[in-house]
Each structure stands twice: as C-alpha cells, then as structure tokens.
C-alpha cells in the first residue's frame, strides 16, 4: 500500500479455445432444439423462449445495473472485475433477436391480444389503453433501445479509459449511471409487467417489478461471481484479488437471496391475508395439481439451499462453495421464471420435457458465446481506471 505506482502488471491471457467451442456447441445445440421445438409445438416453444428471454434480460440488465451502482457509489472493490459485468451486459444486444420469436407468437400466448375476447371482457376492456399491440410494441422497442444505448455509452467510456487513463471518463460514467438508474427502475418494472405479468391480464401485483428485480440482480451477480472466480483461479486477472473480494461477492449473493425471499413472501402473504378471488387465483394456479410440487421446489431451490449454503462467514469467501452456489442460483432463477411463466401454458400440471431442458442450453450457450466473442476485443481489467489499484488492495 505504501507503493505509489498506479501501474498494474496485467497482461491479457487468451481464453482457451475450449470455451469458445463450448459456447458455439451449446448455442448450436440449443438453436437446433429451439427450431425443432418451434416446428413441433410453437406455443410451448414460445413460452420457453420467453423464459430464455427474461433470463437473458436478467443477466444483461442486472450486470449493467451492477456497473451503474459501482460508479454511483464510488465502489472500489468491484473495479478489478468490472469488465466481467460489462461483457455480461453485452447480452442486452442480442435480446431483440431472442424476443422476435416470442413477439411473433404473442397471439397464442397472451390472452389480451385477442380483440374479440377483450371486447366482451369488462376488465380487459378497461386495461386496453395500456395492453394493446401497438403500445406494447412501442414500449418494448423503447426499452431495448434504452438498454442497448446505455450499454454502449457506459462501456465505451470504460474501454476508452484503458488507453487514455482519462479520469474525466469516470466522471462521465457516473453521470450516465445517475441517469440510467431511474431509467433502469422504470423500464425493468414495465418490461416485467409487459412480458410476464400480462400473461395473466386479469391479475395484478404492485410488487411484481420488485420481485423480478430481485431475481435479476441475483442472476447477474451469480453469473458474474462464477466467471470472476473461475477467471481469477486460472490467472486471468492481475494478482491481488483475494478472499475479501470473494467475500463481498458472496455477501451480495446472500443479501439478494434474502431480498428475493422477502419480496416473494411479502407478495404471497398480502394476497393470502386479503383473500380476494380476483387476486388469489394466480397463486391457486400455482398450488393445484403438480404445480404445488413446483412451488415447494422453488422455495427450496431459490431460498432454503442457497440460504444455508451461504449462511456461515467462511462459506461466503470459499471459492468452491461460491462457484457451486452461483451456478445453483442461476438454475434457481430459471426455475423461478419457469414458475412465473408456465402455469399460463398448462394449468393442469407442470409441463416438463425436452423443450424445457433444451431452451436453457440455448441461453447458456448464448451467454458463453457473447462472452467469448467480446473477450477477444478487450482487456479483462479496466487498466486505465483510477480506482483499479485501490480496488485490488481492497480488504475487509
């Protein structure tokens, strides 16, 4: 700490080909499954596609949120591996492509797109000024545009800094992040309402946006944690990242697991207490037939296991536990989205087959491919960032 040099001895190490191949392989496999799925049963495929879309939104947008928070709070601990988050946020670019099949099949998925149904339904009629195809399309397009625009603005400043080391770029990013935060809050809330909550257009929950947000952040941090620890163990970062950094990541994961449980339970408890038929049917759909097992499975997978897995202090900085828990939480987030989306497709029982297994492969393949592609183009440490040295020296 007494040394005054800002220079970090970081030399970029290329990713092994295996990762790129793995990414392409999984992506191709997932794509083939998806295409076959669309030809077999396009409705079910579209619902699965929606899960993938929201999963990728979670990772991309959550990662961008983490970058923004880092700039706004002046955090130093996350600076050494901010690039990982920046690469994950690049998933936002492919989102519109993933959304296209869902958009084309919306008529089979969303009840409110049927104008004849809306005409006879008093509630849907009163919601029609918001829930109609034109406005929906505009909203979704604006959301995608905003997200991608902010992604490019923030990350390009960060990459420029690698060469120039110009501190004013940090200031500029802080301002951008300050603008991004409210944009993020509003777009994420409305995106979750549009894509997910409107699957049941009669139902409403004011907590829905926050519920999706908690999962979003969790998925982004989990994906980041896994990649960061994996890369650090194999020497892709400069030396100096240690257990204290891991602990910060683990503590964040733990915090947001609790946050998710808190929000999920609060939403449930209010409906349980008030017991109004127009609100409770959403939960009844998820508590009847084989869905009851899915609901219990979700509680265990999304809360109980990671909670006890990360409860103790040493486990939060143990790389093995963290890597396992990060993958586990990503899995839990897919289960969560499955639980949100699928009861609309099949109220009778949990639909589980090769499609439900195949689409997540597509998502994982896509994330790895995006990661491997962008990895070639940039340093994995923001070497020009004025906070980098302090970030590496971060100690609890």
């Amino acid at each position, binding site marked *: 700490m007494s040394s005054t040099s800002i220079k970090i001895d970081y030399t970029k190490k290329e990713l092994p080909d295996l990762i790129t191949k793995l990414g392409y392989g999984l992506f191709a496999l997932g794509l083939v499954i998806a295409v076959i799925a669309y030809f077999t049963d396009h409705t079910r495929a579209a619902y699965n596609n929606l899960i993938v879309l929201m999963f990728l939104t979670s990772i991309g947008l959550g990662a961008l949120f983490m970058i923004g928070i880092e700039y706004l709070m002046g955090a130093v601990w996350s600076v050494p591996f901010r690039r990982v988050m920046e690469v994950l946020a690049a998933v936002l670019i492919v989102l519109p492509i993933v959304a296209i099949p869902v958009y084309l099949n919306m008529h089979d998925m969303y009840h409110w797109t049927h104008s004849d149904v809306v005409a006879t339904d008093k509630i849907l009629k009163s919601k029609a000024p918001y829930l109609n195809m034109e406005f929906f399309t505009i909203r979704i397009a604006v959301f995608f545009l905003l997200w991608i625009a902010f992604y490019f603005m923030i990350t390009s400043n960060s990459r420029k800094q690698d060469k120039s080391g110009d501190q004013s770029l940090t200031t500029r990013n802080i301002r951008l992040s300050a603008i991004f935060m409210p944009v993020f809050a509003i777009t994420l809330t409305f995106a979750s309402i549009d894509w997910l909550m409107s699957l049941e257009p009669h139902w409403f929950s004011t907590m829905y946006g926050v519920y999706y947000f908690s999962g979003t952040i969790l998925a982004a941090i989990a994906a980041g944690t896994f990649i960061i620890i994996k890369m650090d163990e194999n020497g892709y970062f400069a030396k100096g990242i240690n257990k204290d950094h891991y602990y910060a990541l683990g503590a964040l994961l733990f915090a947001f697991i609790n946050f998710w449980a808190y929000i999920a*339970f609060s939403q449930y408890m209010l409906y349980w*207490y008030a017991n109004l038929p127009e609100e409770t049917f959403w939960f009844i759909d998820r508590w009847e037939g084989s869905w009851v097992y899915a609901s219990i499975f979700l509680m265990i997978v999304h809360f109980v296991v990671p909670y006890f897995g990360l*409860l103790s202090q*040493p486990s939060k900085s143990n790389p093995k536990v963290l890597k396992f828990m990060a993958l586990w939480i990503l899995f839990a987030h897919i289960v969560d989205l499955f639980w949100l989306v699928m009861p609309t497709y099949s109220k009778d029982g949990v639909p589980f087959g090769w499609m439900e297994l195949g689409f997540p492969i597509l998502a994982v393949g896509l994330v790895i491919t995006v990661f491997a592609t962008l990895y070639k183009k940039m340093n994995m440490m923001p070497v020009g960032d004025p906070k980098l040295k302090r970030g590496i020296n*971060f100690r*609890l």
Partner: protein
Amino acid sequence: MSEKILHSITAIFDTPDDIIHAAEKVSEKGYKDYDVNTPYPVHGMDHAMKLPPSKLGYFALVFGLTGTFTALALMFWMSVIDYPQVIGGKPFFPFPAYVPVMFEVTVLSASIATVMSMLIVFFKFPNNKHPLHDSEYMKKVSVDKFGVSIEAKDKLFNEVDVKAFLAEIGGKEITPVYYDNEEINHKNVILEPKFLGFLLVTFIIVSGATYFTMNKLLFMTPFDWMMHQEKVIAQDDFSFYGENRAMLTPVAGTVSRNNLPYLYIGKPEEAAVAMVNPLLPSKENLKLGEEKYNTYCSPCHGYFGEGDSRLRGQFPNPPSLHSEKVRNWSDGRIYHVIMEGQNVMPSYSSLMTREERWASILYLRALQRSLNAKETDLQ
C-alpha cells in the same frame, strides 16, 4: 509502588499503512498475545493480524434460532392451544401470518444477544478495568495515532527483545504499561456476597411491591363516604314496602302531577274536536308562548311561522304555518301535532309541558292573525 507488574510494551505508529505492516511483522514474529489499537477500523487488519474468524456469529445463530422458535411456540400456544379463535376466516394455525413475527423476533433476539454476548463474553463486562486504560498510549491511539501493544504473558515475551523489535519495525514512543494496584487486587464486584444479598433484597422488595400494587392497592377505594350514604337509591334492594326494590310500582289508576296522559294517540280528528285551549290569551300566556315558540318551533318554522327557518336547506323545509289549512285547524289539532309530530317533525311532548304547548299555540294564533287579520281585529 513497588509491586507494579508489567502488562505490555506499547509502540505508536503514525499512519494506517504503518500499523498494517507492523501488525503483519508482529504476527510473523510469532507473538500471540498482542493487540492493535486504532482510532477507527482499519481495513485489512484481521488479515494482517492473522486473526481467526470471529466466533460471535455462532452466538447470533444460536440466539437467532432461539428467537425464531420462541416466537413460533408462543404464537402456536396462544392461537392453537390456549385460545383458538377464527380470525379473518383463517385456520387456527395460519403459518404465513406467523412468518413476519418469527422474522422480527429472530432479528431482535439475534441482534440483542450478539451485542450482549460481545460485551459479556468477549469484553468481560461488567469488568471495565484494563491496564491500557487511562495510559498515555490509549489517549493517543483513541485520537489520531495507531498503536501496538505486546503483552507480557506472551510466551516469546522478553522485555529487551520486544523493545528492540518494536523499534526495528518503526514504532515510536515505546513505553511499558503496568498494572496498577487496583487491577491486581481486582475482584469482581458482582460476586461479592454483599452485592448478591443486595440484589436478593431488591428483588424481594420490588416483586412484593409489584404484587401488592397490582393485586391489592389498585382495588382499594381511596375514600367512600360519599358513595355509601344512609339512604335508599332508586335501584337499590329495599324490602321494607314488600316489593324487593326501592322504586315502587305506582298504585293503579294514579297519575303523576303535571303529567296527564294523552288520550288521543293516533287519533288526530278526535283530538281536533275534543280539546279546547284552556289558556286565555293574556299577556303572560302570550309571553310564555313567544318564548317557547322561539325556542322550540322557530328553528324550523321560522320566527314568524313562514317556514323560512335558520335550518333552511338542511332538512326538508316545513310548510308555512300561515296556510289556510293550518289557520282552519282547531287548537286541539295543532296540539296533536306537537304531541305526536308529523312527517319529519318529531314529537315535542317530552320537551314542553302541557301549559307551554297551549301557550305556544296561543302565540302561533297571534302570528297567524298578524298576516291574515280578521275584520274584527281592525275595529
């Protein structure tokens, strides 16, 4: 004081970086019983001192779980076993409703127990004596300096070596700190029989006083000579007259004074014919009538009987009393309306006496005559 015992050797450092390096070197050297004092938490100190993870977390875990299950057991006992009651149509064991309470009690007991166990187990509260207290060293490190103290009980401790070592790693103002007499002869005040006896006596007095207050004192009447007088109250038990109560049933056929029974209930036509105003339109009677009319009738009917009242608009407006219908009514018919009410108008039988009713009718007649005078009035 010759019997001073060496507690530790202290050294002062100027910056947080220095103290981190010093702590690293001290722990590398193999000392176990040493401590670092800083005016604020220095990041990375645990690592530099090679401290094991704190055990405090286990206290939090145990007490937190105790809180969870205490809350669960408490609510279960109350709402399932002792006093099952249907609330909001929920089952007797409404688990979701328990969760917030369990959560809160967990947080509360975990946080309080963590602080308490930190104080009692780790800081040895209530003992607040420590040799470093009040030393020059402590005065400095609690303001703007950073210090290391290596204690004499360490196995590797050797006064000369330690002083040399501290100087070598850059420490300034290397000073020994001694126990003072009070600390050497320290006994835990809490365990003295006197104190324990005092606690016991206090406990007995406080609980006795509480018991007396809650069970006896609160139920004593401070003075009761006005409440218990030598007389019979209307609702009392009283068997002197044969009936078992103080208020006797009236003798059959009696009427109480000034309280003639009204014979024409629900019979307006009979009332109109049968009753005649017993009062003469004397000055006194008109005066009484004016007073009563202004008090009871004018709020709705207006001071001049035109229905232009002060309450206009808040109730359906009453019709004018100057209409031909009312003018042609007999006094008995008007009396009946006062007794029984009409439409929205309630009965005024309990508000006005018989005499007042007739007097206000006299006054009303005078009002009517003022607008629709008879030929004879002009003479």
